[in-house]
């Protein structure tokens, strides 16, 4: 099975406080720790496990700036066979459709049976996978938390729906799936793994390599634009308990007793 996994480099929001720059044009990026989008890491792990079971290759692709290379390399250290870095000034300011257009051009240069994306990335959109599938006229399933290869024409997938229930579907290949966290346990990548792939060549492709008209991607092609970042006027929010730990605990126990929070 030839598998393509789309990955994105994002600020790790469980490690960082995300703050808005004074003028609202961006978030403060200087001290942020970046990593691969959490959902994408599960997608890469799943692809590797499928390959190890039925054979084939795993290719990891990402649209992003110079620094994106480190994320592609990390996922190759996990066990992906190939990496492709999609980088061009023309991609700057792409909306979801622009990203999907770029990835579609890449897909058409290869022959992939299965294309995986994460369920969502840092901006919480969850759009690239479904758009890519529609552009390719491939079937799509979102929020996939189980994959079983049936044969080389079709697979069985579980989708996560409400209440922890799982919707089972059969889907024809080639297809696009967006992967939900928890589908597997992504392997740990140590320094040694990273070192092994340190000198592997990762080809870079831009608009001309992909045969894309620069006007349909990037800010030029975007139908949706982010105008600014801001911190909303907050409501009252919680009453924050202040004082020494002892004082806070005393107050909290009182409140809990009053509300029935201690039996």
């Amino acid at each position, binding site marked *: 099975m030839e598998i393509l996994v789309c990955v994105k480099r994002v600020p790790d929001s*469980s490690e960082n406080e995300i703050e808005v720059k004074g003028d609202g044009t961006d978030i403060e990026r200087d001290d942020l720790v970046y990593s691969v989008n959490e959902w994408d890491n599960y997608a890469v792990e799943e692809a590797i496990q499928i390959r190890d079971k039925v054979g084939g290759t795993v290719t990891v692709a990402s649209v992003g700036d110079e620094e994106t290379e480190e994320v592609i390399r990390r996922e190759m250290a996990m066990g992906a066979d190939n990496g492709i870095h999609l980088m061009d000034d023309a991609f700057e300011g792409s909306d979801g*459709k622009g990203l999907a257009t770029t990835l579609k051009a890449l897909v058409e240069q290869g022959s992939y049976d299965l294309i995986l994306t994460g369920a969502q990335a840092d*901006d919480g*959109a969850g759009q690239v996978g479904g758009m890519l599938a529609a552009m390719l006229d491939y079937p799509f399933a979102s929020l996939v938390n189980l994959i079983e290869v049936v044969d080389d024409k079709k697979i069985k997938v579980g989708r996560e729906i409400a209440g*922890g229930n799982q919707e089972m579907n059969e889907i024809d290949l080639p297809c696009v799936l967006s992967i939900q966290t928890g589908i597997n346990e992504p392997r740990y990548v140590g320094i040694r793994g990273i070192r092994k792939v340190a000198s592997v060549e990762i080809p870079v492709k831009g608009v001309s390599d992909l045969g894309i008209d620069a006007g349909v991607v990037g800010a030029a092609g975007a139908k949706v634009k982010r105008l600014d970042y801001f911190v909303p006027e*907050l409501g009252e929010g919680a009453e924050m308990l202040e004082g020494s730990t002892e004082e806070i605990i005393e107050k909290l126990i009182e409140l809990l007793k009053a509300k*029935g*929070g201690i039996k």
Partner: protein
Amino acid sequence: MAEIFAYILHKDGKADDTAYELINAAAKIDPEAPVTAVVAGSGSELDSACSEAAKIYPAVWKIDNEALAYVNAEAVRPMLVNIIPKGAVLLLPHEHFGMDLAPGLSIKLDAAYLPDVVDFEGVEGSTLNAIREEFSGMVSTHVAADLSGGVVVTVRPGAFAPDEDAAASGEVVDKSGDAGAAPALMRRYLETLVAEVGEVDITKSEILLSIGRGIEDEENLEIVFDLAKVMGADVSCSRPIVDAKWLEKSRQVGTSGQTVKPKVYIACGISGSFQHLGGIKGSPFIVAVNKNPKAPIFQAADVGVAADILEFLPELQEAIEELKG
């Protein structure tokens, strides 16, 4: 002004809560715009969902097709493409079905796509202005979508108040013919596997001590179970704890986990994503303990403590033990 359409989710003949929210979302885009509900399904369950939708919306379009007895996004998408007029605004809920259907639909309609919108700021010329959140609610953004070719929008469940009056008397128009035949499906529904009930049923708990990624390590779970014991609470959790297989799925609170209705909910090391908060109903008294004083959970909580849970929870336990003697 563009026409607005709202896609209605329904189950067992009843419209979803979001059906009552999308009408108010539409009013926030443009109070003057005509709004039509689109309800797809089959048979008598569809008919009763349509009658309910007609109480909320001034017009209802029905798509009746046997192939939609279990609604499959891959089957509905081409049907919607056949009936949604060029340039329209189509609203869907941002949950598992909307996420399945909407992104591809925007491509097929050649419309802009606005995912997971929490508020609208109206229409300006041919631009629809909206508000979204990024980084699990840590920052918000203003976004502008080009309305000229239409826009598909998924609206966050719970972001708009429901229409309490629902006093419309809409006409139900059968659009099944225009929607066309069901396409040959490249993705076929097989069955739904219902979640297993675990050792505790958190949907029945009165006091929930809930932990999130802030617990940092599986070994630290002990701290939480010890405290829960002295409080008489049950332990629940956010999704990453289940993903890591530290606790069973039946303890997960949220839209893809359980819906809980405790009297008291104590969120420890949980950031407060909308998918997590979506599982807490019945307005419990919420206490949040988080080391980041700016964590979004403090917006949802009644009382907050800015502290490291690994230090705070054991101290709280000691104090309760002393009290109980």
